[in-house]
């Protein structure tokens, strides 16, 4: 999960100018996404799984800060704030203090496979995934398919859709599990609250 986060960070972030693909659309998308230093959005995550007869739906708010990480604030069906910064996951208490979650470290073998992306370089993502871009700059889709056989046996693909901002993420697993995240009200974050800064470890 955390590594996937990193992937998202990578996709949304700046150091894209030297990405190795010569796909102009991809370049454009990456450049556009990288222009926003901090973004807020409301999210809806829908997860389906062969073991579940109805999908799980959660909602909440997301704060995304370039080069720092994100706060994933679930409001429904329960209240919880997670800080996903670099290689760490932490649960944030009511006062904005982070409590590291040890068991979340390397949450799964797949996450381990994705560790290559931890360095914070899109090169890492390109090493692990083949990326294809489709659509127009106003309405685009990036599709990530794992290159590694071991990963591909578990993870089908990841696709990102958006316009000026990232609008949605879909993660399809080989066992039929599927996670869809939609973002609405995406906007520039403006100044951060003291609590948010503390949770993200910002000065």
């Amino acid at each position, binding site marked *: 999960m955390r590594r996937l986060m990193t992937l*998202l960070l990578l996709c949304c972030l700046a150091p894209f100018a030297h990405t190795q693909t010569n796909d102009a659309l991809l370049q454009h998308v990456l450049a556009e996404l990288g222009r926003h230093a901090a973004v807020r959005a409301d999210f809806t995550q829908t*997860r389906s799984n062969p073991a579940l007869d109805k999908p799980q739906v959660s909602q909440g708010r997301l704060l995304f800060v370039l080069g720092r990480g994100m706060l994933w604030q*679930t409001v429904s069906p329960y209240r919880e704030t997670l800080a996903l910064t670099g290689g760490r996951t932490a649960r944030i208490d009511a006062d904005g203090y982070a409590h590291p979650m*040890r068991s979340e470290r390397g949450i799964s073998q797949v996450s381990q496979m994705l560790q290559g992306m931890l360095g914070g370089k899109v090169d890492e993502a390109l090493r692990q995934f083949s990326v294809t871009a489709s659509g127009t700059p106003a309405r685009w889709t990036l599709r990530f398919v794992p290159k590694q056989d071991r990963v591909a046996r578990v993870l089908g693909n990841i696709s990102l859709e958006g316009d000026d901002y990232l609008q949605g*993420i879909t993660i399809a697993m080989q066992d039929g599990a599927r996670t869809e995240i939609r973002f609405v009200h995406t906007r520039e974050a403006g100044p951060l609250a003291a609590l948010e800064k503390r949770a993200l470890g910002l000065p």
Partner: protein
Amino acid sequence: MTPRTLKLRAGLFAVATLLVAALGAYLLFGRGPLPIQTDLLAMLPATEQNPLAEAAVERLAHANGDRMVLLVENADDTRAKGAARALGKALAAHKVFGAVTAELPPFDLAQLAAPYLGHRGWLLTDADRDALAQAGYDPAQALAQRLNEPFLTGVGMPLADDPFGWLQHWLAQQPWSRSPLLPEDDLLVAHRGEATYVLVTATLDGSSYDDGMQRRALGALHEAEARIEHDYPGTRMLHTGAVFYAAAARAGAEHDVHMVGWISSIGIALLLLGVFRSPGPLLLAFLSTAVGVLAATTLSLLVFGKIYLLTLVFGAALLGEAADYSIQYLSARANAGVHWQAGTGLRQVRPALLLALATSLLGYALLGLVPFPALRQMAVFAIGGMSAACLSVFWLLPALLQRPSKPMTPALVRGARALQHVLARPAHGWRGALAALLLLLLALPGWMQLRHDDDVRNLIAQPAALTAQEAQIREITGLGNGSQFYLVQGKDREQTLQHEEALEARLQALVDGGKLEGWLGLAGMVPSQARQARDHALLARLFDDPARLRRTLADAGFRAAAIDAWLAAWPGTPLQLDDWLKTPLSTPFRQLWMGCGAQGCASLVLPQGSADDELLAHAADGLPGVQLVDKPASVSGLFGRYRGYASVWLLAAVLLIVPVFGWRYGLRRAPRVLAPPVLGIALTLAALGYLDQPLTLFHWMALMLVLGVGANYAVFLHEGEPHTAGRPGAMYASVLLSALTALLSFGLLALSSMPALRDFGLTLLLGIAFTALLVPASRAGSMGEP
């Protein structure tokens, strides 16, 4: 003694020497590989009281010792991987490697989880255990949080098999999930910055310390590396392993033996030629020394079975001291001029030689008492060599030196005489005591600056390039350092694992506090039965009410079939250590289990990354059955203790010599004879202080030799001068000759590549020089003014 008996004796001695030579040759070459030990660790003493700890040290050293760890680095990912595959193939083609691992066999993620599936009702992570143990634990809430985790959930472990994620969390903290190396394209890969690193390991088909093995393995590696660096531009290779250190140590020692051996041989040859003005004495001096070295090598091989590299280096230096005896005899012959008679000459020098030999043997015998294999072997080597060299003077040389020779170069004798006068003048009568006091005052500030350093890592110099590479490899791969570990013992498997768990709780606290990178232990992979039972009991609180648990799962949206299957798998069975040790998954970790014996069972826990020694020792404090084994620290501690003893021994040796000198020279004169070596030692210590050299055991060992050699010089001068009354200065000239040959041999060790020998050499250099300059003072009262 007639020339006939002299010849008969010489003949017998020659035959004995040939027999010894034959025996030595057989011991050295006749029994398979050359019995020369290059493993520096093998020279170190057994430090652990617990024999299991020594066994564990050996096991880890062997597990890591015969393996080369190679990292292929390239900024270009494809090239790095291509280069690693090519390297794997190139090395695998060589017979010298037993096993080469570059590409991994294909395996499935499910394989990692499979051995644990049947035991999932017994295994919990610390975090899950804490959460479940809390009074307000709400399974519905926990399930909701798990199912709505951002982005991904239930990867590798199907959600139906592990709804709450307990097993997945547990698997995620296993060492193979935490390793910084990841399987990528069937290779083990790490990425740092721009660069890709690929791991290749090669296990030698033999010992890293085998000379031939070393040469072939390194040859094959260098050849492969050169080709790959050419074929894949930008590739850099990092490597580590005992074989590289052993090869470097061997090269260093060979260099030392060559340099010290050659310079000292050539230097001594020129010196002897210059003094005796004919090649005969030179050849005889070398003959006597050769007999000594031959006997010493044979004796050491007989006693120890093999010879340490360090002993050979030391042996190269011993040439100088062994030459002393023949030099004294040759000097006597040169000084006797036309009146020379081999038998009489021998009687004349015999007391001096015997006295000198006795003091030397005393010194070396004390060295042999140190329970340190390398030093003990040096002592045996020296005792054998000295005795044989001395015997050769008594039995072999007289037969070969029947005719008188030219006197010593007159200029030299005149020079020695002048020097002797200058040095002796301030030491007449009571002025001598005053001069000694003045010297001691000068030495005082030097003594004040003396300090100690017993760290064995400073004594065995390891090439900086190799240690830097090893550190980098360790940082990238997360491999442990192997020289520090915990030995955990218990009366049975269960207790051993429980003791491990107590230790690992403390280590994990250090990890959480950022003070330790990680740890590797079996209890993390196979918890004790007691812990599994406790975890099972925590889970049982949920499973005891299956209807409620079923409702919770159904409310969360789980299908009935999935719920049935999951509930049916309860309670499962606890994971057993013996079963786990049979799974392929445990292969890399099996060396951590030491097995069970009459004394109980034992296992190893390895701290990872570089941590503070104090901190690691502290973590074991007060835990039953847990002991930190830190070989370098133990050896350093032992060196420190023996350094302390050595200073006492030195004093004891001086006190032992006092009655010998008192008997021979009378109690009034004895202090004067003893003063030069004792003052020499005092001044050497001061000089070491001024040079800011921290004292080690090796400095003290050298000081013992200074005492032995210094006493020899005083004895030679005292015993010899009455016989050379007609040639003032001649006796001192021969003492100076002895000192110079010693400096040319021992003193050259100061140039050695190994710090231990360097310390040794420098101390001898200073000590012998001081003593040789002080020795005239011991005869100050007996000499007429010029």
